[in-house]
């Protein structure tokens, strides 16, 4: 485990991504896989192939070069329907945060998010960059399971819930995009470090895109940044 800090911030995360990419480029025999998080990089390695000291030394040798990080690889545009029945907690969120529902949608779809890490379940990608005005706390008690592909917010983050799960987060919309598919290559669309934006769509457009997605077509926009 290489720890770069104890907070959720872009500078710390740049170091995490930088080290993950540097290790991938080095392709060190014995490094099995890495897990980037908000503030650390977990390196799973086979100690029978790779000595711990050697690994630590290699990390030390690439560290000084991690000062600045290249641009995100991709900018994803994720269509999101905030209307009912999809944005089931939207009015409650607006009430708690003293905003109108339209303002909540405007703030969420106006932000550019950073994919910080995956966790909890396959495809659950934690997105940082939620505007301060939407920094609602988690619910004191979990709500009923959110539907698949719900768009959620809580604790200063946004999230797309690829599996239906009980949650302490707030459901503000739903996307037709399948961030995870076991039968598609790549299985996961978003790489940690990518930029993500949400584009509001109405119910008719959701229905149209949902059918396309069910048929196996891509319905997310992707701009290559490097």
């Amino acid at each position, binding site marked *: *485990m290489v*720890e770069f800090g*104890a*907070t*959720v911030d872009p500078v710390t995360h740049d170091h995490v991504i930088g080290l993950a990419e540097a290790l991938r480029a080095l392709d060190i025999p014995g490094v*099995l*896989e*890495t*897990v*980037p*998080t*908000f*503030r*650390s*990089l*977990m390196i*799973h390695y086979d*100690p*029978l192939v790779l000595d*711990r000291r050697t690994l630590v030394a290699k990390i030390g040798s690439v560290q000084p070069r991690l000062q600045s990080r290249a641009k995100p690889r991709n900018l994803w545009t994720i269509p999101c329907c905030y209307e009912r029945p999809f944005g089931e907690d939207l009015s409650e969120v607006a009430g708690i945060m003293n905003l109108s529902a339209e303002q909540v949608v405007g703030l969420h779809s106006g932000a550019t998010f950073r994919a910080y*890490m*995956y*966790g*909890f*379940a*396959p*495809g*659950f*990608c934690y997105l940082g960059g939620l505007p301060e005005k939407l920094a609602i706390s988690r619910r004191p008690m979990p709500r009923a399971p959110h539907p698949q592909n719900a768009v959620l917010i809580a604790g200063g983050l946004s999230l797309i819930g690829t*599996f239906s799960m009980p949650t302490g987060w707030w459901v503000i919309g739903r996307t037709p995009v399948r961030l*995870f598919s*076991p039968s598609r290559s790549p*299985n*996961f669309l978003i790489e*940690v470090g990518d930029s993500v934006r949400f584009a509001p769509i109405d119910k008719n457009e959701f229905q149209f895109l949902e059918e396309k997605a069910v048929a196996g077509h891509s319905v997310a926009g992707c701009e290559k940044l490097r």
Partner: protein
Amino acid sequence: MSATRLRILSAGPGVTIQDGGRRGFLRFGVTESGPMDRLAHRTANRAAGVPWDSAAIEVSLGGIELAVEGAPLAVALAGGSFNVSLDGRRLPSAVVIRLSADHTLSVRAGDSGAWCYLAVAGRFDRAAELGSVSMHTRTSIGGRPLEAGSVLPVVELKTPDLDAAEIVAPWLERSGENVRVILGPQDDYFNTEQIAAFFEATWVVSHQSDRMGYVLEGPKLSPAKGFNIVSDGTAFGSIQIPGAGRPIVLMADRPPTGGYPKIATVISADIGRLAQLRPGHELRFAASSVEEAVSALRHEMRMLAQPVTLRPLGGSLSAGSLLRQNLVDGVTDGEC
């Protein structure tokens, strides 16, 4: 030739198929899965004459009963001390046996051990999901747990000409009482008294334990720096201390990241012996070092690299001559 299938007649909760595990997707939130007791899983596969990370049935304390349909099939069982019987006749708990269509094999919880592996001399014909056929119960990646009526086709059969034999695997007779750990990565969240209490305590495996994690009952540990860290990665064997103060040893179906401080990590070579403890069993933790952990793992690999020794059962179970023992591909009598 007719296809061979294993038909599950009954299965308790938590009986799954596990191969070596799902690699390369932890960064996307996908659990590794794989066997709870890797040493027993690999031993069963070796005895069945297949690569050691092949898919095998992981039998839980709930037990399993199954029958073969079609051509005869050789299977190998290894793991905890389970009660294994063929048509009601008791067999050793680590055993290779040839199953014909008229046989019913029953594997039930025995004196000790929590997991037992049933490997086949062939290959389960299942489509891999994300590079593995391991079943992850919570997401159904790899499929749902086995239940009565499940039918498992087996292809690429080997060794139809096999006599029943006990697997001689003394390395599976492990005590789970002393489990070695390396402190960290968040041991700095705990003061000296808390660390001392962690090592001095006798811990009891709770009934809430499953493939995701083993919850331990004992003294309440309170991290001096609080119960929340900004999430980071977890390992098989990470010991988390959540808000309730009861340690959770993260096991094969753990989430790849977590937000509780981790006081220590169980060394790889001791995870299997911990996994074989049942709810109500006691254990203690002992401090170890990276060097000791690597050397213990190396020792485990050396044992597995040896040929698996088989002791013929003889009697009515032995239909053919003892000379046929060594026809088992990749498996020899230790004397040869």
